[in-house]
């Protein structure tokens, strides 16, 4: 159901590098997941609202009041690479 090309496409969108064996395995695993979805698609669901959330809660809102931010040194301490005041990353255009 899911072919090699589709697996590679999804892998690229997810920035995953797969070996040939893994591509093969993923094609099988993803196909079985989609098979499950197809089983659901076979049910008569007319008039059933799509479930976007499993809890019946809405409007969990926050007042627009500032809260303390992190100290910059703390924030930057988690970065693999940094400058004096910023996160250093490979250029997305390189």
């Amino acid at each position: 159901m899911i072919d090699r090309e589709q697996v590679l496409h999804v892998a690229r969108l997810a920035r995953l590098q797969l070996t040939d064996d893994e591509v093969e395995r993923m094609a099988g695993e993803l196909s079985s997941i989609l098979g499950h979805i197809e089983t659901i698609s076979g049910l008569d669901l007319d008039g059933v609202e799509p479930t976007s959330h499993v809890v019946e809660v809405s409007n969990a809102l926050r007042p627009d009041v500032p809260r303390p931010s992190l100290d910059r040194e703390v924030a930057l301490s988690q970065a693999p690479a940094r400058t004096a005041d910023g996160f250093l990353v490979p250029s997305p255009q390189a």
Partner: protein
Amino acid sequence: MSADVEYEPVIGLEIHVQLKTRTKMFCGCELSFGDPPNIHVCPVCLGLPGSLPVVNARAIHLGLMIGMAVGSELAPRSIFHRKNYFYPDLPKGYQISQFDLPLCLGGKLGDVRIHRVHLEEDAAKLTHVGESGRIHGSDSSIVDYNRGGTPLAEIVTEPDVRSAEQAREWLNMLRVTLRQLGVSDVNMEEGSLRCDANISIRPVGDTELHTKTELKNMNSFRYIERGIHAEVARQIEIVRSGGKVQGETLHFDPRTERITSLRSKEEAHDYRYFPEPDLVPITISAEMLDAARAEVPELPTARAERYASTLGLSDDAAKLLADRAELAAYFESVLEVDSVEPVAAANWVTELAARLDEGDPAGSKVEPRALASLIGLLSSKAINVGAARQVLDRLVAEGGDPLAIVEAEGLGAIGGGDELADAVAAAIAANPDVAEKIRDGNMKAIGPIIGHVMKATKGRADGGEVTRLVRQQLGL
């Protein structure tokens, strides 16, 4: 398609406005502009594992106000989605946005229909660095996450715009509307208003939509107009030379006027949206609607319409006042003074505004009462227009009462009395050749005589009255 076919542009606009909240969309970090990098960041807006977003109630409120201002249908239930793509300005690997259940659907502003208005979070700011010091070929970038997570409203129009000029004018109308709503600073230089244009062309008369390109992130209205012009010209050239327009994302360089492709097509628009599991739905209550409605003021388009239809102002004068809330407010306070004629009031508020640069007349030394009194002096012919302008200059500089200024400066008009008649007689005597031309029926030659009278009366004479006296004295 051949060379003699006329093409028309079909343009839809996508506008991002940063909402004027105190804190970010999903966390309590303060909004900022120009602060040192990475000081308004927290686990939520840095996308650290285990952190959870919580929606800013004020952002929903401002979103509803925008929807009301453009006449949208406000969704009773609305949810957020994850828009998945990788870019370093987006720390989570996805942007929290809205997809099939946006906050506001439909609407119209001016003659352009609104498709939808939805809420999302802004990306961080990337600065490209590298060996070469140039953007292309640079090998690393620095991320400042201060802006990341700023609440944005994305306003999407229907493809109703037919020219670059219309795009610029409509965007200006939108900007003025949003500014008066108070939902955003709408400052293009600071990036609180940003615009993308979806552009296609079609033979005039065709009703179908053809392949469109997306012109990204133009940061001034002038660039938008020029960018659209350049892209429309590019597409017409492609089609006329037998080619096909490719759907792609483009960048307009205002310096070189060149258009370049931004992203490869295969990766674009494969965002794998799915409902954001970390946020529960928004259900709009009657209280939320009431609160939003209470904050929506009379908007520029409605106000201009009212000035034109009920006060008799020209469309241009009405728009000029309505587009600036402070001018409109001042104009209305002048009208509140007894029996001021609206058209004259509009003219003189405009005269005043021109003397104040961008300043608010309410903060000037000219009281609305003083301007009304100046207009009264003029309409009763106690002073002429030139004198009125001099009085206004004095009012702007020093404030005070127009009548007192007129008396102190001797600016009062010379009426139909002997003084003016004598001045006219002297002017005719001094310009016998001009008098001769007038007698021969050439009234246009009267200039030197009026000039003479004005000089003799220090500009206090009424031009119409002088003309009348000249004709009378020449027996015409």
